[in-house]
């Protein structure tokens, strides 16, 4: 099936190269290699990705556009565990094909002021830089934590109505899709920790996820937004009836094994429903670019049942997620100095995986960029500090530092060498991955 899809893509490219035009379709994209080395203990390779990004844009008329973006990737390392795996090419050389977006645009549909977009699409809401509490229509794609802010496309229908300076947007996503989580240490960092009772030894930890039923009232996500400019600032108000894209434990069952004191634990996870009104703004004050964005999350209450009956300790009830509203927000600013140095700072309250007022943490993030040699060389220094508890900062902080040098020897080609260095206390999000320091080299060519 995948081979057939690949052949169709190659066929399409060859056809479009013979007579490239907007009506026939224009292909573009990039090829990118990404290799990373973990700078800890054994200096293992931690990431290997060769990505071919293909974009096709077809404009058969002024009022219609088709667009698709596909990733064809050789990704990961051989997963060979036995000689029989050597007969399986997918295990020897893992690869995958993913539709990032594939949609049809109808401009001036029914009314001159209405645009419609149908299909798999990215609906990026919010004015902040990559950290967007109001961006809740597409599931986060956190597969690569270095590429934070990436989202999956959603199969959706979006209508945008333009009236004077107002833009009204309505979105309907029929089917819920969960987030893609990072592998390894990062996955643990974004999952809530669980303590087991003293004297118990964990043998196996398993889980099962209950997906929303394939019914409109269960699986659908919908959103509306109104945007306008007032006093030189862009404002928008939004509302999303959605779900948390990260799962939450609803039931945890402890089962004793044949070894005294040893248990298996099984978690049942769900994606809580929530109402999310939001607001964002962008503009400039005294030449400084400023933006702010906030979303209030009204979750459904999720009761947590801990079944210890197998241990003869009965069943315990508690609240995994209260139905109290909680707020996530970002305030940011940027500025370019006369010498070309660009600086960007953001204060974030509430990271993607945090829920409930008592669990919101603060993050201070900053980036500095400067280009040299007619933009052929760019040096970026990005970093951030996480504060879990201001009352005892010395035991509740973590920091992250990510320098990068990008060199563009010729148009369309770039080589990037970067690093990711983390340190902090074990009880913080970043502190849990402090042994994940990495260096990376990325080479890309756009066509």
């Amino acid at each position, binding site marked *: 099936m995948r081979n057939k899809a690949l052949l169709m893509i190659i066929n399409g490219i060859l056809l479009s190269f013979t007579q490239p035009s907007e009506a026939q379709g224009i292909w*573009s994209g*990039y090829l990118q290699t990404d290799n990373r080395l973990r700078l800890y203990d054994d200096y293992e390779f931690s990431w290997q990705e060769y990505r071919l990004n293909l974009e096709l844009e077809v404009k058969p008329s002024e009022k219609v*556009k088709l667009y698709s973006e596909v990733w064809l990737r050789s990704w990961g390392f051989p997963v060979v565990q036995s000689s029989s795996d050597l007969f399986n090419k997918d295990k020897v050389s893992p690869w995958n094909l993913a539709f990032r977006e594939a949609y049809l*645009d109808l*401009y001036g549909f029914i009314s001159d002021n209405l*645009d419609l977009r149908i299909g798999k699409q*990215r609906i*990026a809401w919010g*004015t902040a830089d990559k950290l967007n509490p109001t961006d809740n229509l597409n599931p986060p794609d956190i597969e690569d934590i270095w590429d934070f802010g990436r989202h999956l496309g959603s199969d959706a229908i979006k209508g*945008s109505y*333009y009236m004077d300076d107002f*833009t009204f947007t309505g979105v309907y996503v029929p089917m819920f899709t969960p987030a893609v989580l990072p592998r390894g240490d990062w996955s643990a960092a974004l999952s809530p920790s669980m303590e087991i009772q003293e004297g118990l030894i964990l043998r196996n930890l398993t889980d099962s996820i209950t997906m929303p039923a394939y019914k409109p009232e269960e699986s659908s996500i919908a959103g509306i937004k109104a945007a306008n*400019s007032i006093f*030189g600032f*862009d404002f928008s108000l939004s509302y999303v009836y959605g779900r948390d894209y990260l799962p939450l434990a609803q039931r945890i069952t402890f089962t004793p094994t044949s070894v005294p004191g040893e248990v298996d634990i099984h978690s049942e996870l769900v994606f809580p429903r929530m109402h999310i009104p939001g607001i964002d703004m*962008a*503009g*400039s004050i005294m*030449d*400084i*670019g*400023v933006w702010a964005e906030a979303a209030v999350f009204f979750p459904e209450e999720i009761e947590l049942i801990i079944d210890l009956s197998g241990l003869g300790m009965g069943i315990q009830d508690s609240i995994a997620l209260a139905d109290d509203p909680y707020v996530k927000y970002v305030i940011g600013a*940027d*500025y*370019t100095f*006369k010498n*070309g140095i660009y600086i960007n700072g953001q204060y974030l309250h509430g990271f993607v995986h945090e829920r409930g007022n008592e669990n919101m943490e603060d993050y201070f993030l900053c980036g500095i960029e400067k280009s040299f040699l*007619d*933009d052929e060389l760019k040096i970026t220094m990005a970093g951030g500090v996480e504060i879990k508890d201001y009352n005892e900062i010395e035991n509740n902080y973590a920091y992250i530092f990510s320098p990068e040098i990008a060199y563009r020897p010729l*148009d*369309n080609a*770039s080589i990037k060498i970067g690093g990711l260095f983390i340190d902090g206390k074990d009880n913080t999000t970043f502190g849990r991955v402090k042994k994940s320091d990495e260096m990376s080299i990325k080479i890309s060519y*756009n*066509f």
Partner: protein
Amino acid sequence: MKKLILRNFVVFSILMCVSLCWAQDEQLSAAQILENVDDVINAPQDQDLKIELILIDENGEEKSREMKMLQKGSNKRMVKFLSPAEQKGIAFLSLPDDIMYLYLPAFKKIRRIASHVKNTKFAGTDFTYEDMEAKRYSEKYDPSLLKKNDEHYVLQLNPKEGLKTDYSKLIMWVRTDNFYSTKIEFYNRGGKLYKVMTSNDIEKVDGYWVSMKNEMEDLKADHKTRMILQEVKFDSNLPDKYFTERYLKR
């Protein structure tokens, strides 16, 4: 004697009036010349241009970009990059009241451009975002006439109070026959000359004067950007809706 005094008084008064009028005429002339420059460069109702940009570094090495530029009146402009591939689809919208937007296809987002970005280089060229915005010079600068010869008026343009710009002044050479600006010197806030724009191959297309080749030189960086018009269409009745965020990302 009385008659002589009276006659001298009349002659003196006439001379005073003439010189006052001449002085006022000179003041008006600079403003009028700049108005005429604005009228000439913004004469078409709208402009639809395909432009090749050639970036030339200090070693003479060249890089090429292509862009589409739409302009309506003198205060709405949309620029979209067609090449190179890494910049294709990047679009810039300039609206009245210094409102500017940038669309970056990689982020699927339109970003409002803060005023600090106005004085930075536009996509690696020697033009800044401020240089790229559609404008009438007479609305942003106070002109004074430095000199005039048979071929050119030379104007000094000082930023009007409250104008956010990195330029302390511009010196503009204007052709006397058609009021087309042929050269502009840009001075930084320290009063030092740092950029020069020259307009060449000035010809009439569909009844409007247009420079087919412009060149902006950054004297400090020893870097030039040549802007060559490849396709020119005037008065195609471009609708206002082309100059909106809605169209920026199409």
